[in-house]
Every structure is written in C-alpha cells, then in structure tokens.
C-alpha cells in the first residue's frame, strides 16, 4: 500500500476552463480519504488525474514516493471502481474479476485463488458463473469492487460507487466498503457528493468547490470547525441555517439580524474575537440541533417562531419556520404536541453560533 500526494495539481480544459486549481493534499498509507463537493466541483476530475485517465495541466502527483504524471494508468498500480460499475457484459463475474490478472499473465492457479478469495470477502461465491445482467445493482457493484481487490493494487479509487443504488442498499454497501478498508488495510480515495457518505466513511475529508479545495480535515473537525460558510453549509444534514446581520456595540458586542428577528449578546470570548467586526455586516450560522425547545443554558436566547412544517422522523422531529423571511430548520427531540401553525418559543445556544465574513465567507469565530 502507498501514500498519494498531490502538489499544486491543476486541470485546465482547452487552455481556459480551470476545473481544478492548485489541489494540495496527502493521502497517507492505509488512509481512507473522501473527496466531497457538489456536482461539477472537480472531485471526479481530481480522482481521474490520480488514476491517469486525465492529463495534469500542471503540478505533480506522487504515488508511493514516485512522480506519476507521465505514467499511463496501468503502470500506476491503482484500481478504480466506477459509478456505473463498468463491468464487461460479455464476461461472467469470474472472468470480469480475472480480466486484469489475465492481462498481467498471472498464473491460472493464482488467479483462481485470488478471485475466489475476493468472491468470499464480497459474498459473491454463488454468482461467479453469472453474467452481469443476471445480477442486482448491489451485486454488480460488489463485482466491481471485487475486480479491484483481486489486483491487490497500491491505491483503490472509488468514483461515486454507491450513487446508483437505492437508499437501503447504499447504507449497507457503505458499511461493507468501510469494513473492507479495515480488512485490506488499503489506501483508498473515495469520491462522493453525499456528505453523509463522506462523514461516515472517511478518516479524512477533502471538501471541494468550483475546483478549489476548501478544507482538508477529519470529519468531526469539519463539522465543528468549518473554515468557511460553504463547508459549514455542506457538511451536516440538515444543513446549517444562515442569517445576515450586523455586529453592534463596542466592548460588549451584540448581533442583530437585518430583519430584526434575532438579537443576542455575544459571549465574552466571542466579543474578543469579533471586535474588529464591530459595526460590520456578517453572516451567522446555526446548526439545526443547536435550536431547542427547552432552554439549554443561561447563554441562550429565545426566538418566537411560527411553525410552517413539521417532519416527524420518529426519533427526532424537524421543524421548519422563517426568520427574517429565511427558511430555518431545527432538529428537536420527539415532540408530539407540536403542529404546523403553532407559535412557539425556541432557544438558540450563543456559544454554538458560527460567524462568517460577509465578503469572503471565512469562519471568523
């Protein structure tokens, strides 16, 4: 297994379309790194550059300490699992898994051992003689993973492998891939647009937007300390609520939203950090779970809201309402006596409020 390093990697199409800008990150040996971001953010292009399927416009990619910029995919010792499985329809599951090894002229007995071993890991033993069309979506995806496993590559690349599966199967495969990572102790790079997949699977997450890496961090750090408004809004489900307003006061600072529906005093610590934003427009961010119906502590401020929609999930309830004309969502513990149209008082924890620069979107907390 190996380390993958990207140094100032750029991808420019037709001399002008910059789809990846200065990508820098390291995937350590045996690490599971997830590239996440909205569609068109350049995550798949980055993965394809690591695979050698796209040329690099500038920068360097190292695999196992060697620059691989000029190496064709087959010489990079990587395996890739595609979003659409990319199984050879004219070959059986066995032949699909053995194809790469046959090309490498690996001994037949060795091929047989490796294919059967992978089939066992992925519970595909009874499907080895079937063609892909006779398999379900989940089984096909497992064959695609098996095809990668048998080659024992240095790095596994996954390009949104679960996005074609239904929700239940996706959760199941998610765990299976995580288990596989532990079992194989392999270096894995995984691309997804689904932040839940990113949070649950990765040791480290690379958040991308418009071809630029916004933050590289562990899942919990991303959640608790997002570097900017984009990362804060992208990580977490339901997403963080945002509201524009102004910092007012001199020593003891307060925040007042533009529409006037929120006004609260900042904590002493927050005031210290936010002093240079006095009298300036900023954006605050509040996670849905930091809005509660019971007062959690003294450092909380109340808001009167008119409930628009209630979404009971069983173990929790999502409550939708408006503040300053902006849709807010709060995640409450089960409340059977809440109904849409109710006017209730909710509490927001001040120390859990995030502050973002209005111009740059940077986290200024």
């Amino acid at each position, binding site marked *: 297994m190996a380390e993958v390093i990207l140094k100032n990697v750029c991808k420019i199409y037709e001399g002008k379309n910059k789809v990846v800008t200065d990508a820098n990150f390291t995937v350590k040996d045996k690490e599971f790194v997830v590239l996440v971001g909205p569609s068109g953010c350049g995550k798949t292009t980055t993965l394809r550059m690591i695979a050698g399927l796209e040329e690099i416009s500038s920068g360097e990619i190292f695999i196992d300490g060697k620059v691989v910029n000029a190496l064709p995919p087959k010489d990079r010792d990587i395996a890739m699992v*595609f*979003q*659409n499985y*990319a199984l*050879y*329809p004219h070959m059986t599951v066995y032949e699909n898994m053995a194809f*790469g090894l046959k*090309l490498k002229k690996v001994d037949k007995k060795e091929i047989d051992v490796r294919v059967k071993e992978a089939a066992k890991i992925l519970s595909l033993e009874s499907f080895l003689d079937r063609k892909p069309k006779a398999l379900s979506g989940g089984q096909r995806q497992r064959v695609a993973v098996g095809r990668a496993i048998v080659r024992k590559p240095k790095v596994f690349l996954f390009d949104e492998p679960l996005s074609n599966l239904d929700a239940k199967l996706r959760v199941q495969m998610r765990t299976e891939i995580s288990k596989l990572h532990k079992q194989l102790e392999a270096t894995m790079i995984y691309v997804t647009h689904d932040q839940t997949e990113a949070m649950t699977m990765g040791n480290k997450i690379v958040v991308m937007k418009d071809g630029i890496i916004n933050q590289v961090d562990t899942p919990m750090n991303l959640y608790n300390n997002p570097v900017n408004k984009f990362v804060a809004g992208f990580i977490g489900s339901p997403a963080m609520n945002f509201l524009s307003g102004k910092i007012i006061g001199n020593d003891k600072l307060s925040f007042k939203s533009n529409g006037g529906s929120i006004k609260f005093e900042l904590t002493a610590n927050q005031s210290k950090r936010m002093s240079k934003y006095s009298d300036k427009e900023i954006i605050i961010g509040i996670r849905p779970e930091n809005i509660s119906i019971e007062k959690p502590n003294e450092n909380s401020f109340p808001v009167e809201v008119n409930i628009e929609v209630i979404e009971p999930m069983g173990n929790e309830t999502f409550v939708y309402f408006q503040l300053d004309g902006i849709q807010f969502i709060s995640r409450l513990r089960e409340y059977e006596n809440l109904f849409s149209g109710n006017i209730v008082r909710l509490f927001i924890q001040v120390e859990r409020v995030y502050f973002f620069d209005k111009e740059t979107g940077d986290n200024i907390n």
Partner: protein
Amino acid sequence: MKKYLLYGFLIITSVLTLIPFFWMLGASFMLDGKASVFPPVFIPEPFSIIQYKVLFERLNVFRNFINSLVLSVLVTLFYITFTSMAGYAFAKYRFKGKKVLFNVLLSSMIIPSQVTMLPLFLLLKYMGFINTYMAIIIPGLANIFGIFLIRQYCISIPDSLIEAARIEGATDFQIYRKVILPLAIPVLVTLAIFSFLGTWNDFLWPLIALTDDSMYTLPVALSNLMLEHTKDPELMMAGSVVTVIPVIIVFLVLQKYYIKGIMMGSVKE
C-alpha cells in the same frame, strides 16, 4: 378482426413473394422443356438432378462457386476488421482533424459507385491487380457505411468500460479485441451479412475487374450461361439455386445475432 386481416394480408404477400422462389426450386429439378409450360408447374415430374450435373460437370460452375465463396469470405473478414477498427477509432479516440476527416468520408456516400468504377479500374490496373482476387478484395476492404454504423454503435459503449480495461493493464489493441469486438458482435454480424451478400451478388464490378473465365464469380458465370443457353430455363434455375442457397444459409445462421440488447447489465444508465 383487425389481427386476422393483418395475418391474411401477411400470408398473401408472403405466398406471392415465395411463388417465384418455389418455381425456381421446382424448375431446377425438371428435365429440359418441362418448365416452359402454362400454367406454370411447381412440382418436378419426373424429379431429376440432371441440370445440376450439367452445371457442375459440363459447365464447370464449381470453380465459379469457389471463386464467389473465397472472395465473399475474404472481403467480409477484411471489411469487418477494417471498418470495426476505424469505427471504434472515430467513436472513442481523440485526434486532430477527426471531425473533418469523418465528414469528408461521410460526404463520399453521395458519390454513386458507378462513377468511381473507371478510376478504380485504372488504379487497380496500374497496380497490376486486374483479373486477380485482389481486384475484388481491395475495393471491398472498407466503406463509410460500415464505419459509420460501427461508430454509432461504439458511441453507445460507455467510456468507463474502456477506462476500466485501460486501468487493468489492457493495451489499445487488447481493448479493441477483448472489450469492443465482443460487445459489437450484433452490429458486426449485421455488417458481415451486408458485406457477404453484397460481394456474393455483385455482378458489375467482377464483370469489369475479372476477365478470365476461371476467375469469374457465380453471377458473372451465370450471366454468360444465360447468353449461351437462353432456351434452357431449367438449367438457368439450377444456376440460380446454387447462387441463392449460400446466401440464405448465411442469413439464417447469422440472423440470431442480429442487433439485440447485449449491453444489458454492463452499466447502470
């Protein structure tokens, strides 16, 4: 009711289409003069294979049959090889001038083949290929119709299949041979049928390019026969049967491979 009318119509048109065929088959097993009667007779009485004996023993049609067979098989093999390679390249490779080259090739479809016969003849004469198999094989190596058909089919093959093979270590030729060709079987078979039938049935070009009796293909040899034996319709029909049977066999054998959903299950659309 509508269904019955439709079936009735289909049965009648099928019978009308098959009548000349059955008459040809019947007449080929008749003795001289038995076929030229009115109303036409379909069942040979007595049944005789004399016409076939004359055809193969006296007129040596076997040599022409072999010419046709060898040429049709060779042309088909070369045609399939070259059109599939070109079609695949036009569908999946990025190279300079691809669009222009393809459009130029496409535009050549509007030129009638008869127009190219004289320059083609002169070219092959200059190369010394007139009256050899090469005179038939070379012009049949590839055409834009085949390239276009394969290209369209290859476009529907997902790039990820090719990329997966590339990552697994396949060379360009291995991808073509082990991934693309097996997937393109339905369209290759369709083209093989077209090519085989086209070469087997072609009359004009072999007539121009092959000048020696021993090099004639079946249609050319039969047309010569017709001039010599205009009063032997039974012999003519035996010649026609010999010409038509291989075509029917090829079609029946290959028709099950006609374009079908072979791609099913490869990728999730």
